């Protein structure tokens, strides 16, 4: 109910607040090499609904505050929560992320370094990345049990991304080091390809023009850990993605995901809404007494 109210409020704000817009990628898991514009703040809300065999389905959600510190550095804070149907709604932790563009100009392949610290409980179900031996059954326990386990992790990604003729190709190998319990490095991946539905912009402002839609597909999964690297006991997903960049700085994203093996959730439905606030840094500097 509250969630519906939130969405309705967001849409109402969108309806009365028409100005510039950003060109956002459609990915919900994969990263491309484009960072937040310097001084801009992007406020994002995402949901992940998943079916669950051996337990109740769940709806996990997270908020992202993404700030473009410079043209080559973006910093981000995540706040995660989830509702397991017939169980409870809980806050599951936070993540701090930094992305650094490594090369100053555009190349065929553009590398970006991603460094994230996570302090979450085992009840976290946003599935923003699949790593190690993450499998569906991990989410079957009750929240009361899962929230007893705490994860402090350092996550590193090498974002490799290329854009050619409107097509974006992105590959994100990732490595996660649990910082407690002496657990080994875990590994995973995310791949994405996407393209706007039209490459030329129309001369007039429009909401439903093809250029405002970006479609693609993502694939992500775990590839084991250091002692048992490989595909055994891992989960994998393929997910079509679509983003609608509205002419009001809002972006809507939708992605149905499908598990590719028996260890995966059979169905995921992710969606998100985000809005970019341009000039946020300058406004804050003025408020805090700077120039």
């Amino acid at each position, binding site marked *: 109910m509250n969630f519906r109210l939130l969405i309705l409020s967001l849409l109402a704000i969108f309806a009365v607040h028409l100005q510039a817009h950003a060109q956002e990628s459609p990915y919900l898991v994969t990263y491309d090499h484009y960072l937040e514009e310097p001084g801009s703040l992007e406020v994002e809300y995402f949901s992940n609904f998943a079916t669950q065999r051996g337990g109740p389905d769940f709806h996990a959600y997270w908020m992202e505050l993404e700030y473009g510190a410079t043209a080559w550095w973006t910093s981000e804070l995540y706040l995660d929560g989830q509702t397991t149907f017939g169980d409870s709604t809980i806050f599951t932790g936070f993540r701090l992320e*930094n992305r650094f563009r490594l090369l100053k100009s555009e190349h065929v392949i553009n590398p970006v370094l991603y460094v994230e610290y996570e302090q979450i409980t085992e009840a976290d179900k946003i599935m923003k990345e699949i790593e190690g031996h993450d499998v569906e059954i991990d989410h079957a326990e009750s929240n009361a049990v899962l929230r007893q386990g705490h994860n402090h992790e350092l996550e590193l990604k090498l974002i490799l991304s290329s*854009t050619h003729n409107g097509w974006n190709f992105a590959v994100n190998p990732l490595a996660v080091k649990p*910082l407690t319990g002496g657990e080994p490095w875990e590994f995973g991946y995310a791949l994405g390809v996407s393209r706007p539905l039209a490459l*030329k912009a*129309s001369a007039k402002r429009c909401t439903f023009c093809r250029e405002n839609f970006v479609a693609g597909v993502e694939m992500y999964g775990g590839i084991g850990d250091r002692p048992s690297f490989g595909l055994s006991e891992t989960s994998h997903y393929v997910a079509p993605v679509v983003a609608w960049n509205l002419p009001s700085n809002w972006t809507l994203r939708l992605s149905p995901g499908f598990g590719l093996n028996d260890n995966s959730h059979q169905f995921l439905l992710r969606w998100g809404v985000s809005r970019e606030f341009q000039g946020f840094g300058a406004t804050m500097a003025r408020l805090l007494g700077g120039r």
Partner: protein
Amino acid sequence: MKRSVCRAFIVCVVTSAFGSVAVAQSAGSGESRKDKSPYVELSKVPAKAAAKHNPLESDPDAVAAGSKLFEMHCAECHGADASGGKKGPNLRVEEVQQATPGSLFWVLTNGVVRRGMPVWSRLPEPQRWQLVSYIKSLPAPSR
């Protein structure tokens, strides 16, 4: 366990500190380069890229579409009328207007990351050419 968590925080703090120091340095170097023209990047464009022809030069909608794109993506820094803003330089000046379309396209594509201009290759090529058409259509500043 506590030691590991501390280690993680240190990594995060060091990462952020690295960024902050680098930002401070780039701000500092910006000060020392104050008299360096913000248009210097146009002179660094490779000859092959500078010679590129705008494929949308004769497209009657290109300027209007470019104007729309400019308002969406560029006006925040370069000003609504492209005569310069707090972060971005004036685009009506001679240096820009006399630059080849290929040079403007190259700067748009690659950005000037160290000076705060992001890469705009996320806009498809035709949209970048539409922006170039708009920028080249701008009248000279009134004196």
